[in-house]
Each structure stands twice: as C-alpha cells, then as structure tokens.
C-alpha cells in the first residue's frame, strides 16, 4: 500500500503522461468526462460519475476501420493501424472496471476484435473507490464492491491523501515507474474507508434490488410480458441511456465519403433508434416497444444466457440519472418484481 | 511603360475617370464658360488622355483657364467628367514642382484677375494641404 498527498497529484500525472497517454476525468463546461490529461486541464476526481463511461478508451464512439482510396479506376485499401501507445486510465470506478470485463466478453470472444484487443493490451487501469456513493448507484446488486475496485491499481481518496495499491503485474510496473512520488502507507485508513463506503452502500435505495425472474432462463416469460406495453410509453427513443452506458456495445458500420476516398468507420449505435439494424427489407423491430424491450432483454436475459449468467449491467446508475423520461433499468426491474409479487400474493395482474 | 503612358495612367488614377466611356457628344464643351479662352477644348481633353498626349495637355493654356465650375462634371451624360481630368493634369504639374506647393503668390500670376471666386475656392481646396 502506497500513498500520495493530493497536492502532489499533478506531479504524478506529469510523470505518467511523460511516457504514456493519461486518461482521467476532466471538467468541461460543468460536465465531467474522461479525456486526455494535459497541463492546465481541470481534473475532477471528486466527481462520482462521469457523464459518459470510460468505455471510449477501448471502444471509441467512432473509429475508422480502414480507408479506401481511389486513383483513377484503381482502388487501394489502407487498414487503420492498431493501438501501439501505452496508456493509463486513471480514476475508473468499480462499476466501470466491471464494464470493461463485460465488453471483453463481447470483443475478445472469437472472433477477436483486434482494435479493441490492442487497446486493452496497452492499457493500465487505475481504479478509484467511490468515496460517497449516491442514490442512483446499484452496483451492489451485481456483486461489485465499490469500496474495493478491481483494475491494475486500486486507489482510495481519503481526506487529502490518495492511497494506491497495485493489484496486477501491470499495476506493479506502473507503481515502479512512479515510486519515488509515492510513500509507503498503512492499510488501516483504507480499511476504515472501505467500511464507511460499504455502510453507505447498505443505505442506498437500490442496493438490494432483486433480480429474481431475470437471467438467461427467463426468455419467454419476460419477452411476452404485457408489462412492456405500459413501460415503454414515456420513452422518447433517444439514445441517452445507451450512450452513457458502460456496457452497451452495439455499433453500426458506415462509410464516409471524404471526396478523395471512403472511410469505413464504426460508431456506437442505439437499439432505441428507429434505424437500428435497418436492413434492405426494413427493420425487424418496428415499434418503439420492441426496441425498448430489446435493450432490457439484452442486458438482463440475452446477455446472461450467452455469458454464463453475467448480466450486462453494472449498476452505475448513469441511465437512471440521465433519462429525460425517468425511465430506466431500475424502473423495469422494479415493475417486473412488483408484478410478480402481486401475482404470487394473488393480486390482480396489471 | 513610356513616360507619356505613365502620365496618362496617373491622370486616370487621380481623376478616377475612364476616358474610354466618352461618346464624343461635346456637352462639356457646350457647357464650358471658358471655352473661348481655351486652346485645347474640354471634349478634346478626353482624347488627349486617350492618346496619351499629356505633354501637350500640361503645357496648354486651358489648364489654367478652367474655372472648376463643374458644369461639365454635372452635365456629362457618360460619367467622364472632363473637369476632373483637367484638375488631375494640374495636379501633375503641381507634383512636378517638388515638395513646394503652389504658393498663393504664384497663383496670382497664373490667373486672370477677373476670375470668379469659385475657382479660388476650388483651387485653395485642391492646393491647401
């Protein structure tokens, strides 16, 4: 266990940035998102949740796959280079670290996504425990301990000090590189911080949300539930939930005509959009209800069915915070739970 | 560029006039109160500039007989305004004299005692600075 005074953090950042790219939460116009650190950037480690999750670091919102160039009637294809630069993601919360693991299930499974793989291989993750979790958090539901985040290095922000604990070899290597800036520390303050965080987590309104009735086996019952028809109605069909989500991994592949050639790029897509999975014949989901259902069925049923029971939600609560219609995964889980409760107690089915 | 051509260009630049717009109607000469005093007539001024015969122009009597009454400027239907050309030719002469401006003393010798006030006003406006 190491520690560093918070006032010395700029020196730490400078050191890391000297050899690697450093991504960390930066404030811009009142909003905090992950960005590349530079001198003068306003770092905000106290912000619990960045607006977007840090998944951009591995799975950018847009990335070029290859470029076609035209010379007369000859075409040449230049694939985009893979990530070669080492980089550090600093200040990632426990839920987002889990988010990466969920993305790994998708992108590192066969066939491996080489772009993603290269980025993942070159990254060192410094996680940060959640000093003051909020009412929208429910990572506990997915067995994530925000007091003891995973990653290559875990860190805790306590008072004026940042505690630092390497967890992996990569973490050790990074620690080695900055060791002269760190001091040895006792485990004790961190343990008490963990306890206080866990105490708060216990008090959070959604911490004990029940996932009963979900999971890979719930396919037909959940799919055919009449509840969807009521639930989806306030949905505006925007993509806010998907774009702030650390685990949404759907993308579209499109071409951009640069005038000199064509760039084939992929970009995040949202199952909430009417042109999602649009094909020549049209769309296989024609109503917003179906699109809405798709998102939650994917997170809570299809994904666990294909990935050893792992839900593709990490309880970060970003969608809970950002949905313009106050319509989100917690709402869905709770509505289903209430319905099944009233069913079991012989009440009326909604 | 020949010296003559250069002078012609200078005149066009100072006056802002395009002499090629002239349709040779003669309204300037018809309007001119000093017509009979002039050796080169107002409408001829335009031709002299077109033909780049500036030497003749600057040595003409007309240069100093023009009253700057602006009748030709007002009435020219083609926006050629010979009065401006004449004034520009005068400027050439004045500039040639070097740093010294035409002094009021000198002007008296050049001008007729019966010349109207307007010319003096016009001349002072032109040479004051």
């Amino acid at each position: 266990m190491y520690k560093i005074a918070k006032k010395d953090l700029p020196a730490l950042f400078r050191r890391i940035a000297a050899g690697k790219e450093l991504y960390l939460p930066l404030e811009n116009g009142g909003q905090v998102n992950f960005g590349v650190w530079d001198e003068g950037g306003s770092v905000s480690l106290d912000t619990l949740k960045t607006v977007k999750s840090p998944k951009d670091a591995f799975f950018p919102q847009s990335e070029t796959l290859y470029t076609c160039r035209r010379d007369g009637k000859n075409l040449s294809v230049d694939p985009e280079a893979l990530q070669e630069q080492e980089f550090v993601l600093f200040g990632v919360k426990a839920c987002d670290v889990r988010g990466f693991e969920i993305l790994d299930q998708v992108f590192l499974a066969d066939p491996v996504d080489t772009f993603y793989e290269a980025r993942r291989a070159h990254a060192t993750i410094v996680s940060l425990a959640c000093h003051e979790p909020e009412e929208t958090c429910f990572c506990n539901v997915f067995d994530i301990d925000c007091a003891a985040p995973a990653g290559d290095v875990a860190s805790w922000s306590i008072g004026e000090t940042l505690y630092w604990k390497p967890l992996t070899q990569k973490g050790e290597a990074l620690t080695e590189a900055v060791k002269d800036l760190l001091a040895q520390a006792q485990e004790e303050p961190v343990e008490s911080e963990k306890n206080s965080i866990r105490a708060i987590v216990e008090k959070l309104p959604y911490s004990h949300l029940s996932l009963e009735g979900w999971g890979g086996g719930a396919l037909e019952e959940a799919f055919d539930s009449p509840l969807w028809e009521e639930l989806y109605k306030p949905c505006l069909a925007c993509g806010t939930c998907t774009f702030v989500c650390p685990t949404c991994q759907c993308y579209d592949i499109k071409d951009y005509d640069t005038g000199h050639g064509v760039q084939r790029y992929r970009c995040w897509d949202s199952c909430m959009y009417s042109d999602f999975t649009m094909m020549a014949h049209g769309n296989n989901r024609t109503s917003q209800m179906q699109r809405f259902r798709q998102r939650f069925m994917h997170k809570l049923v299809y994904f666990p069915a294909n990935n050893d029971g792992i839900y593709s939600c990490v309880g970060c609560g970003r969608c809970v915070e950002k949905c313009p219609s106050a319509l989100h995964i917690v709402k869905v889980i709770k509505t289903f739970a209430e319905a099944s409760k009233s069913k079991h107690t012989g009440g009326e089915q909604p | 560029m020949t010296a003559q051509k250069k002078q012609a260009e200078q005149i066009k630049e100072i006056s802002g006039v395009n002499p090629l717009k002239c349709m040779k109607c003669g309204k300037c000469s018809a309007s001119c109160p000093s017509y009979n005093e002039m050796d080169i007539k107002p409408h001829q001024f335009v031709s002299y500039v077109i033909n780049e015969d500036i030497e003749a122009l600057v040595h003409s009597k007309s240069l100093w007989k023009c009253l700057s009454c602006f009748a030709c400027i007002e009435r020219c239907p083609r926006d050629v305004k010979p009065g401006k050309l004449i004034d520009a030719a005068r400027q050439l002469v004045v500039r040639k004299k070097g740093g010294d401006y035409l002094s009021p003393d000198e002007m008296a010798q050049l001008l007729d005692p019966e010349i109207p006030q307007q010319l003096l006003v016009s001349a002072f406006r032109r040479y004051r600075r």
Partner: protein
Amino acid sequence: MPECVKTMSQAEREIHLMTAQQQTTQTQVVNRAKELLADGTVARVLGWKAGELPYAPQPAYFEKEEDLEEFVYNGFCGANLSKYMIEASKLDGKTLVCLKPCDTYSFRQLMKEHRVDREKAYIIGVGCKGKLDIEKIKAQGIKGIQSIQGAERTDDADTLTIQTLYGERTCAYADVMLERCHVCKGKEHMIFDELIGESRDTKDRDRFAQVKEIEAMTPGERFAFFQKELSRCIRCNACRNVCPACSCRKCVFDSSQFDSAQKANADPFEEKMFHIIRAFHVAGRCTDCGECSRVCPQGIPLHLFNRKFIKDINEFYGEYQAGADLEPRGPLTSYVFEDVEPGIVAERG
C-alpha cells in the same frame, strides 16, 4: 337551462372552489380526471406519476380511475407533454392532457402543423410557478438525495428541504429553477378546456441576454465557445426526440435523403451540422420551451441556437412567438418585399 339547476350548480361550483383552494393542484387534477374518465369524456389521462427517485416523476398515461392514485404534479414535472399528444392523437377517444402555460404554445404550434388533433385532446391547463432543475440542485453539491420537501411551490414556501445520505440540505426554489423559467413566457395558457391551479410569471431575466453576450464576442471567441460546448455532444438525439417542433416521422439525420445519417462522433463538423440544421428546421416554429436544454445529458445550452433564431426573427421580421396564434404561415413561410438582405449579417460585423 332551468333556473333551479343553474343555481344549484353555481352553489356546487362555489363549494368546489372553496375546497379547491385548500387542495393542491395535484389533488384537483386527480379529482377532475376521475370525473372525466368516469363520465367517458376522456379515455385516458396523460400526466405524471412518481418515478423511482423523488426528483424524477415520469410522464405517464392513466386509463383507470384507481391508477390515478399514482398521479403526481409538482415542481419536477418539467416535461412538455405536447409532444406525446402526437401519438395520443392517433388513439381512440380523447386524451386528457396536462399542459403548463408554456406547453400550450407547443400544442398550438403542433395544431397548426396538423400534427395533433384538437378534437382528441381535453386540455387541463395546470398551474405552474416555475419548474425545478435537478442538475442545479446537484451542482450545489447536494448528493445522495433521499427525499425532497417543498417541490410543490406555494406562496409561503419558497425553499426546498432535501434529505440526503450525507445530511439535510436546503436551497431556495428560485435558485434551482430551470433556465427557461427565468425567462418565463407568462402565466397565461394559450389553449385549454379548463384551468386548474395558479400560475406565476417567474421571469426575472432577459431572454436574449446570453445571446447578446455571445454576439458581442469576436468571431474567434464565438467559435471557441461553441466548439467547447458542442465538443461534449454525444449525438444521443435526446434534444431532438424531446422537441415538440422536431416532430418529423423520420428525421433527415436518420434518413438517406441527404446522406446525412451520421451517427459518427468523429469530427467537430458533424455536431455543428446537426445542431445548426436542427435549429434551422425548427426556426420560426420553436416556441422556446427549453426542453432541449433540459434533457441534454451533457448540459449543452442548446436553447442558445433557438434563441438566436428567435432574436433574429424578431429583429428582422417583427416580434414573433410561435404557437401564440393559429396563423398557418410562420416567419420562414412568409415574406415582405422590403425584407432585409442577407448582407446585413456581414454589415453588422
């Protein structure tokens, strides 16, 4: 109508009014909605119900009287329900819809454009004394919110008391209102079948102040300002999808008409293109309801684009408020011979 009946109903109305004064707008709406559902006037009610969080009520339909127990109406009911009426107009029977004064402008604009059916709507003009912005509350460092008191603003309660995991906090109602409420269009409803609850004109700022501030900057500063703001845009389309003026069945940015369907977030140009065109498409039709700014997850002041157009329209073509009338032609579908020339932009410098 026979005399006796009239007096009776008048007396009834007085009693109703007396009790009404003691009731909150919420209870009054619920009671009235139950009546209208019961007598078959309306087939459903479009309002809000309590969400999962104390500050996030959810737009909701109610089809049964007993469901209305969940109905809420308070300072967090900012959503403009006019947009939902586009879909509701396709349903059988009338929909009772709760519209705040500023929402009624949007409804009228949608009527003009044949997007909502007046005959399918029973409009209850609900009172509004300014709506709250949770982002502003959180910006005061208030987190871990458990409950909030005072969200139903009354004349003698102007403070919010907030219980959080980290202790009790308070804040002044006026300090945490939505931006749009500071430039309130007034307490009059433009269209309604009946009114419930009192409204207050909460205007305390110049609507165009920020636009003017930006206009006063150099082009370079303006460019930097918007570059910075728009750099946060994630193309989630929340602004578009919540907007009552963006009522297209299929947005140009989703269709192949202009090859403009770009979900990419690859270049700063795309955000500019999207936001300029979006603002242009709603120019002359935007009622300045402020929903775009309210829902933006990245806090981009999107209303600036709309206000700039509104300000220009007012200056160039005369004061205009979309949705204030039912005149079919708007500023961009009419003209006068003497209109200013586009060169005025360069002249103004």
